[in-house]
Every structure is written in C-alpha cells, then in structure tokens.
C-alpha cells in the first residue's frame, strides 16, 4: 500500500513532465527553470539543515565504544573501534563513510526449532548499499563531463575504468549495471522482507522509486533512445555559465531524466537522504572516547538542586553520633 502510494507519486511526476515537456513543449521551463530552482532549493535546504543541526550543541561526549578502551599501557586498545584521539576518530569516520563499517557487522538472528538463538553474519545489505552508493558517486562524477570544459582527467579516467567491460556499443558502464541491480535489490528487500515492509514508510519507497526513475531514464537514453550528447552538453554548459540556451534537438526522454534529477535534488534536504550529512555529525561516532582524560564542556550545564553534605549530616545527626561516624559539626 505504502509502496503503491510512492509509486503513484513518481508516476504523477512522470505524467507532469511528459505533458509539460513532451506534449506542451515547455522546454525552457523544464530545461532551465526547474533545474535552477531545484539546485537552489538543494543548496539552501542542505545548508539550512546542517546549520540547524550544528546549532544544537553536543552537551555530552557519548561515543558508542565498539572495542577495547585505551587505559593501561600494556593492554592494546582498539583505535579504530574505540578511538581515543582525533586521528582515531578520523579513521573511524572514514571507515563508516567510505566502507559502511557498522553495516558490515550486520547479523541475522534465528530462533531454531530447538529454541536456540543463532546469529549469522548477513552482509547482503552491506554489499548492496556499497554497490548503490559507489555507483551513484561514480555516475555523479561521470556527469561532470557535461558541465566542465575541458573534461577533467579524473572524469575520463573514471570512464575508462568504469567502461572496462567493452561488451557493447556504446560501452557498457559497470556503474550503470550495479546501480540498477543494487536499487532493485534494496527495493526487493523492502517489499519482500516482512519486518522491513512493516517499518517502511511511503518516503522510503519514494526515495528508491525516484532513484530508479533517474537511473532507468538515464540508462534508456544512453543505450536505447540515444540522446544527442552534443546538445545535452550545450544545455548543461549553458546552465553552469549562467547563459542558458535551449537546444531544439533533444527529445522528451532527456527532459524526463533531468526532471527526475531535479526532483531528487529538491527533495534531498527535506528527507532521510540527509543521512549523507548526518553521518558526519553523529555524536556516537564522531567523538573520541577520551572522556576521563579530557573534560567535555556542556554550554548549558544547568544548576540543579542537590542534597549537600551539611544537610545530610543534619538529617542523620543522631544516627551518625550513635554509630560513631565522624561529623563535621559537633
């Protein structure tokens, strides 16, 4: 049901751009106005979001420690899982961001018929997550070819690696295959795994459908409908140099693709996709476990009512005397 709602929204979006750019021919609107607006919303939104996070202080240093602390010299400490300084934290964060370290720990639990709990490591999600995110990044970087002149070396290098398997013409990019496979897997598990289906919200499906829409239209353009690349680059260069031109020769599929991309950009800051920024600000991961060595300051450390020793001594005076426990006041 929730998946259908999300699918419906994506279908409506498709209808909008089909009618607008395809039937009515509002190319300037869909080729220029919408992308500009989307990027603007993205930039303002993401800055606003990160600033909102950053404005709330971190009152306590609460890293989740996943390994041995640093205490006595002769006990080897686990600097990656339980970092005690900034350098350790940097490496821990790098592992999280680049390799999804915590997800790598994932296990699946089963209650056997003999009523034993067994835990098996379960890395499918980790593999699919890496495949999706890395191909997304590679595809994102490959797109710089449209926006930069001359095309940076990094981009051409990426293309040559990514297109290593020259199975077809045009060259089949590995990242295209991976992103589709990974997204389908992520969607499949959301739909088929009952626990996951139970916790999934329309927004969770929407993100996946939207990304699939972006990826599928892109792939179709590249391998099936064959968009005019020169014209596409002309439009893109026009956008980044703030002198937009709308070429006449690019067809509707192209507008559909950039419309979905625009929606993705505009949606990003207001959705769970902000996890991209959030992961860097997570206080259970980005702080060093040196609590007892270095004092952490809470900017709003409140005054609280306390029961002082003097009050306590007064409260229990006679009993303290009877028990022979020394007093401050006789």
């Amino acid at each position: 049901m929730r998946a259908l709602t999300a699918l419906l929204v994506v279908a409506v979006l498709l209808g909008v751009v089909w009618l607008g750019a395809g039937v009515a021919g509002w190319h300037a609107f869909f080729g220029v106005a919408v992308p500009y607006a989307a990027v603007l919303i993205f930039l303002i939104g993401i800055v606003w979001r990160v600033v909102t996070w950053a404005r709330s202080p971190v009152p306590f240093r609460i890293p989740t420690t996943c390994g041995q602390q640093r205490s006595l010299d002769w006990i080897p400490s686990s600097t990656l899982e339980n970092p005690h300084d900034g350098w350790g934290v940097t490496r821990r964060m790098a592992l999280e961001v680049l390799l999804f370290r915590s997800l790598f720990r994932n296990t699946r639990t089963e209650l056997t018929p003999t009523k034993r709990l067994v835990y098996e490591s379960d890395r499918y999600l980790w593999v699919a997550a890496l495949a999706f995110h890395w191909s997304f990044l590679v595809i994102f970087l490959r797109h710089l070819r449209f926006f930069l002149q001359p095309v940076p070396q990094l981009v051409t290098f990426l293309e040559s690696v990514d297109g290593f398997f020259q199975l077809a013409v045009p060259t089949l990019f590995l990242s295209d295959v991976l992103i589709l496979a990974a997204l389908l897997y992520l969607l499949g598990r959301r739909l088929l795994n009952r626990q996951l289906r139970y916790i999934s919200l329309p927004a969770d499906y929407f993100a996946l459908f939207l990304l699939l829409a972006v990826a599928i239209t892109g792939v179709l353009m590249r391998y099936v409908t064959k968009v005019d690349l020169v014209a596409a680059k002309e439009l893109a260069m026009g956008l980044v140099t703030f002198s937009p031109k709308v070429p006449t020769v690019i067809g509707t599929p192209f507008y559909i693709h950039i419309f979905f991309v625009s929606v993705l950009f505009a949606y990003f800051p207001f959705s769970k996709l902000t996890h991209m920024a959030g992961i860097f600000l997570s206080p259970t991961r980005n702080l060093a476990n040196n609590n007892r060595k270095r004092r952490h300051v809470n900017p709003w450390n409140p005054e609280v009512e306390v029961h002082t020793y003097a009050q306590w001594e007064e409260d229990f005076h006679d009993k303290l005397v009877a028990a022979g426990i020394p007093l401050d006041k006789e």
Partner: protein
Amino acid sequence: MAEKTQQELLQIRYTPPRRDWMDPSVDFEARRGSWSYPAAGKNLTYLGFPNPREWSPADEDWKLPDNWREIIYEGFRERLKKFRSLRVFLDTCVRCGACADKCQFFLGSGDPKNMPVLRAELLRSVYRRDFTTAGKILGGLAGGRELTPEVLKEWYYYFYQCTECRRCSVFCPYGIDTAEITMIARELMNLVGLNINWVMEPVANCDRTGNHLGIQPHTFKDNVEFLCDELAEITGLRIDPPINKKGAEILFIVPSADYFADPGIFTFMGYLLLFEHIGLDYTLSAYASEGGNFGLFTSHDTIKRLNYKMYAEAKRLGVKWILGGECGHMWRVIHQYMDTMNGPADFLEVPKSPVTGTVFDHTASTKMLHICEFTSDLIKNGRLKFDPSRNDRYRVTFHDSCNPARGMGILEEPRYVLKSVCNHFYEMPDNTIREQTFCCGGGAGLGNDENMEMRLRGGLPRANAVQYVHEKYGVNLLTCICAIDRATLPTLMDYWVPEVGVSGVHELVGNALIMEGENERPTDLRGEPIGDKEAASDV
C-alpha cells in the same frame, strides 16, 4: 503474575502482525508482566517532580494535567535545541532495518515495536508531524502521527521497555542510539508525571540518604561491619574499613547493592580483602554511599543531581582521587557525564597507584579509576599472589555489561583479572559478548518483579548464550562487573539455566588472593567448601 512456562515464553514469532504499527494500542491489562508500576506520589513530591498522584497504567484515565500536550511539545522543542544527538538521530534514520533484530527485547518478545527503529519511530512520528515541514503539510503520508493519549500510552509502554543498552547503536550505520532517544522520551514523560517507581524510589532514596536502597548511615556501618565479621571468620583477619575518614588518600565508592545483598556482598568482601592486603589508605563514605545513578534512567538533570555527592564528598574528605567499584550504569555516568556535569575536579590529583606507582593518565581529568583497571595493574606488576585453585569449583564465563562495554570499552581488564584468579575460563559466542553483548533484561529500572515476563524475555539472548557454554564446557558461574546484573541475572539464570550462579569479578579475586597472616581458609567467601575439583568436572 502467573508465571509462564519456558515453552510458553518461547513461542516467539518474528514476523510482524498485519495491523499497521501506526495505529497505537496497548492493552495494559492483558499485558501484565511486561510493564512497571508507576512512581508513588510521595517520591515525586519529595523530588519536586510534576504531577504526583496515585494511578495505574491499566486505568483508562491517567490523570494527566490538562495541558499535557503543550507541556510535551514545549519540552520537545527545548530538547531539540539542547541535544544535537536528538535532532540528528530523528532526521537521519533511513529505516534500513539493520538494528531491527539487535534488541534483546525484540528477540525475546517478537513485538515489532521493540525493534529499535520502531521504538524510535514512536517519538519520530510525532516529531515529523509537528516539527518538520513535510510532516506539517503531508501528515500521515510523511509518516507523521498526532500525539494522542494512545500514542502517549505507547511511549510509556515501550520507552520503559528499553534498557538503554545501546546495542542497536553498534549496528546502525549512522550510530543512531535508541538509548539516547529513550532517555529523552523519558525526560518528556517525566514532565507530565509518567515515571516508574523502580526508578523514582531509588532516585528519591539516593538524594535523601545517599544511596538507592535508602540505607541510613548507621545501617551502612552495620552492614560493613557484618561483612567484616564474615571475613574474619573465613580468613582469620580483622578488617576495619574507615568510613567518612578525612585525609585518606582514596575515596572508594561502590554501588549500594554491594554492601546490601547476595551476591554483591561477596564482591564487596573481595574488595576489602584486596585493600587490606595491599595496605591501601582509603575511606568509604556513608554520604556518597552510592556509585550507581538512577538519574540516568530519569533525566539529565537528575543524573547531575545525584552524582553531585561524589566530587563534593571527595573534596570534603580531602582525598587525592576516587576509586570506583564494579557497576555498569555507574560507569557510563562517571565516564561520559560526571566530569562534564559536576567537574572540573581540579581539587583532586591524577590517580596513581600507591603500590605500583603507575599513573593512570587516561583518567587525568575525571580522576576516577575503575577497580578492574586498578587490580589489573597490581597483577601485571606482580604485586598479588593468587591460588586460583581456590576457585576450581567454578567454570567461569564473563558477561560484559552494556554500559562498560559500549559506553567505555573496558573489555580486557576484567578478563585479565579473571584469568589470573581462576583456572577455568570460557567465553560465550562472539556475537553475544564485548561490544555485541546482550542486556541482562533488567537494566534502566526495569529489574522489578511486576515486569518479570519482559525481563525473562529480554534476558533470553543472554541466557541462551550461557546455556550454550554451560552445555559445552560445563560453565557454572556467570561473572560480571555490574550491580544491576548481580541483582537480575540470578533470577534470569534460575529461570533459564538454573545450574549457573552469578558473581562479581572481585569475589573471585578475594577467593584466590593469598594474604599474609591469613589462616587456612575453611571456605570461600560464600561459605562453600574451597576448590572442589570434583564438583567442577562433574557438571
């Protein structure tokens, strides 16, 4: 509660029901055994907490203040401004499900709202509807829920069904810590008088008498003396630990259960023997007579309020530094909150072992050392002689307590001590120890009798792992460094693996320690015959 049989409890299904989780409904009457009694009015009154009254969750009317919703919204808004953790954790969850089957309460009950992600969604759904743009416009479609009395009742049920163990946060790719969400949800509930007595009574006691159990100073002294009498009988040595002694070098603080109840008292006896043996210049305090801090299960302000006594007492007595006993949540507070809240402790000195001269540099600011760190150092430097065979009655395993494991990382020290004092040590399976350790099922104030069914369920993963080493290696002793564990694990073991007992680490230290001037020990600290090798190989 009519106790359920193991077979009944084990009918667990991990497949969620058809009913949408967004429809709130908890039938408290039908679910007796899995919730805790509310705080007695007198405790709230003593503490100055809002809305003291007599009520029961099973009642239809919870006697909330008329403007309860505004109070919670206001409190929510305030906390969003105060805690980045709250904002980031509410905004970033992608519902990947990695945390879903990591919570012992889900594993033991199959109740989908005990998946950490859904537990957090209980709060997040309200946040979405009322604090985010998308939610304000799209409402339910964006996953928003109105804060109705039913939703609030759900909060009460599920946020007092999380032991703030942080296991979920180990597995979450963004480190989302549902314990943090639970802590803040409990703060919000406290604003309208939704608290549980097993938390608030200890808090009130601790504020008033100095410890959770409400033990007054003369009884404190009696208890310590009673344990010293026992020690004299076992070892022939007369120990007289100072109480509230000014000018001692070290203030020693333990969780109150250690001088009150079996099996904690045996751990306490172990500490005393150790200190006597090395001639430590220390003092106990009848005022700072609690290491634990149930404020952690109440609110951040309450943590600070209760924890105040430690530094205040250290200052008053003029000690150089503080040594802390075996306790789990106590160490989360000392390690991650105390210095920030009640510091700086600039009137103390960096802890230094008077025996080995080791300076414990990692405690340079807080000036508080864990007893396992202290003892490890003594052993490593060859200052203690042990006869591990005195513990031969036991085949030992070690339960990492949640807080020391995931809020500190003290994993090797207790193991090093244990392996030095006993001959038979076996680890439980990897997925159930160290940072992946399971909760005893009764932390965070849930270790009360009325919540027994949920405790036994939540403790199932731990019990299951113990059963495994019991069957495989004949393990018959589950050791730990936590007072709540020592209070709750015996019940758990009695139910699931009755052949296994529970002890602290320093109990075994006390047993094995060879002391000058002691007599041939007739029994171990429990009064059981020593080193019965037959018994150990039998099991």
